[in-house]
């Protein structure tokens, strides 16, 4: 027995519960969801046998087969990992094939291919609860006998069967099974199908008459050609409305707590640069972003619900027809939808797309799906545009329109780009797993929400804090002898930068101060809010501040030097349009370069999207101004 820990690979069809099992074995918090293609790369962790021997566990991307001419990158990664061709990962000593017990006919095909590779194998018969509810009569002992490998019935999401599986992973590992289904016929596929069919007749007998279960009944509505779309639009609208309305109470609380904290610091410290740095720079800058935390948490909560319940695949199914109009398939929907949360996992999720051209196009347009980093900017501007306090249905409608505009433009760009790249040499068909509806796994939903919330807070406490301090310095130094805030700002480094930028951004309806805030947001979009908070802050506070956001109040009263209001309806729309289209996220550019295999694509995407954002804002503002708005 070698001293190095043995390597166990978890393999299975998409949505068979591999990542849930991986989390249960390793205690990790790998992302899971009730739809295909959540895992797109090899994840690793450690677990121990009942005798305390350490095992190295690999969670491989879900795949339907192990073809040597693998179409999608995730299938190729799985095959390379199993054959020891993946850099830095040795060939596994044992493969745990995870199958959905309610769908054995399809899932067993992959198990046979693993056995054909000559790898020792254990079958994790997952989701036995779902299979039993559907009336399936499973015989794990018969399955084990026919396949020649250990079979462990389990329910990974309830941690049932984990101990039994660990028992099966004890040394010595089972030997590779004999391949008994390959007859003289050359067609491997036919042999496997025939074997699986006979196996299922013996070990997974279905009831005589198929009954319509809960999933079938719900799908008759949610996949209906008309009602399905009504439900889809209603779900999306409720999502956006909830983000605005439910979040207003905690947002007001955070806002007033930060205001009180700022007042307390003001009262406790004598006037000076440090007090100004703490109140205007740190509390104003970081607090201006932190106040949007409840809305970010709500967005991820709803995305988690949709993923965990199984609705996400239905949405992809519905969208296939729409995606086809953009030259894409339903497979591109999930990466694009993931991009609403963050473009980076969205770009990585394109690995499930077989066609290289379709994958490139999806990567290219993914950043136009409005990500959560844009939300603080939208939440700041929309109520200002509508002259309302936060939390009305009109604001939800505007937010919905913003997301629709980004999405439609992405589809249009995808269609044009797909046309330019030409058709694929091999015609590929869209296949999608429609998992049964399940009760959401609340532990994962809440853990995901907390992780993302923590990531947001950490960003506010690091990058945004640092930039807020630097912005405060730019706004404060060099110092002026004047007491007029306008003159002090004009004399400062920020005022001078703004003066330089102003000719470039003026055609879009912005002054140098807004231009400076936009410039800082290329580090991270949310920084725009803290920059605006720092640039427009004044020392006094009054009663109105308690009822509405301080930043919006400052923006409302901001003027051009000749006294005209700075933020008009047109300049606010122009600002929104700029943020919808501009690619202000360097990490996304880096991931695009890696996933597309070329910096040319990444730099081209950055230049194109920034240029497009500028032109679109210019067009909107100039047209609106000409029409007298």
């Amino acid at each position, binding site marked *: 027995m070698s001293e190095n820990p043995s390597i166990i690979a978890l393999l299975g069809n998409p949505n068979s519960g591999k990542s849930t099992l991986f989390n249960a074995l390793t205690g990790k918090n790998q*992302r899971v969801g009730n739809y295909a293609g959540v895992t797109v*790369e*090899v*994840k*690793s962790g450690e677990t121990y046998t009942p005798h305390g021997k350490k095992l190295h566990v690999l969670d491989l991307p879900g795949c339907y087969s192990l073809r040597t001419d693998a179409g999608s990158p995730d299938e190729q990664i799985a095959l390379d990992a199993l054959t020891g061709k993946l850099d*830095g*990962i040795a060939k596994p000593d044992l493969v745990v094939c995870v199958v959905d017990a309610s769908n054995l006919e399809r899932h067993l095909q992959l198990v046979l291919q693993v056995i054909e590779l000559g790898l020792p194998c254990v079958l994790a018969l997952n989701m036995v609860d779902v299979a039993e509810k559907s009336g399936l009569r499973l015989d794990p002992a018969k399955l084990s006998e026919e396949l020649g490998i250990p079979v462990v019935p389990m329910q990974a999401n309830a941690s049932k069967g984990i101990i039994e599986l660990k028992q099966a992973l004890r040394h010595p590992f089972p030997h590779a099974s004999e391949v008994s289904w390959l007859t003289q016929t050359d067609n491997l596929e036919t042999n496997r199908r025939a074997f699986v069919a006979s196996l299922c007749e013996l070990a997974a007998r279905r009831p005589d008459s198929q009954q319509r279960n809960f999933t079938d009944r719900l799908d008759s509505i949610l996949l209906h050609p008309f009602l399905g779309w009504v439900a889809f639009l209603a779900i999306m609208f409720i999502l956006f409305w909830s983000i605005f309305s439910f979040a207003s109470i905690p947002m007001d609380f955070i806002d007033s707590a930060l205001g009180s904290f700022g007042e307390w610091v003001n009262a406790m*410290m*004598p006037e*000076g*640069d*440090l*007090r*100004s*740095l703490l109140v205007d720079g740190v509390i104003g800058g970081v607090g201006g972003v932190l106040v949007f935390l409840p809305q970010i948490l709500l967005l991820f909560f709803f995305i988690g619900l949709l993923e965990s319940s199984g609705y996400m695949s239905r949405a992809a199914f519905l969208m296939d027809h729409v995606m086809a109009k953009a030259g894409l398939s339903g497979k591109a929907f999930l990466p694009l939808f993931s991009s609403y*949360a*963050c473009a*980076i*996992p969205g770009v*990585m999720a394109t690995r499930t797309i077989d066609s290289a051209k379709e994958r490139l196009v999806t990567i290219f347009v993914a950043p136009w799906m409005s990500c959560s980093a844009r939300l603080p900017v939208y939440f700041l501007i929309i109520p200002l545009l509508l002259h309302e306090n936060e939390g009305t249905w009109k604001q939800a409608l505007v937010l919905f329109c913003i997301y629709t505009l980004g999405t439609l433009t992405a589809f249009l760009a995808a269609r044009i780009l797909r046309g330019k790249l030409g058709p694929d040499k091999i015609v590929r068909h869209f296949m999608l797993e429609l998992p049964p509806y399940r009760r959401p796994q609340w532990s994962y939903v809440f853990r*995901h929400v907390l*992780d*993302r919330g*923590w*990531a947001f807070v*950490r*960003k506010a406490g690091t990058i945004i804090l*640092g930039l807020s*301090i*630097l912005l*405060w*310095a730019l706004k404060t130094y060099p110092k002026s002898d004047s007491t007029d805030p306008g003159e002090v700002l004009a004399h400062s480094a920020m005022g001078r930068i703004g003066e330089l930028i102003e000719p470039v951004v003026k055609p879009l309806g912005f002054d140098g101060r807004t231009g400076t805030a936009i410039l800082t947001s290329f580090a991270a979009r949310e920084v725009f809010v803290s920059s605006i908070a720092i640039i427009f802050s004044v020392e006094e506070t009054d009663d109105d501040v308690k009822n509405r956001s301080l930043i919006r109040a400052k923006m409302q009263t901001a003027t051009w030097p000749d006294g005209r209001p700075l933020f008009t309806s047109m300049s606010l729309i122009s600002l929104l349009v700029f943020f919808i289209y501009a690619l202000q996220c360097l*990490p*996304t550019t*880096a*991931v695009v370069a*890696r996933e597309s295999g070329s910096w040319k694509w990444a730099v081209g995407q950055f230049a194109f999207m920034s240029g497009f954002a500028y032109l679109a804002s210019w067009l909107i503002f100039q047209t609106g101004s000409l029409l007298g708005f």
Partner: protein
Amino acid sequence: MEWQSYIALGIVAITLVIFAFRLFFKKKSKKSCGHGCGCAANEKQ
């Protein structure tokens, strides 16, 4: 200059040094953006 100005300038200087360090010296994992957005940080590919 009073004491508050010295401390404030010190904080700004430290921030600048940290940003410069992050920009030029800190190597990020090639597998993720390093921003904790859930894109497989610290995972083996």
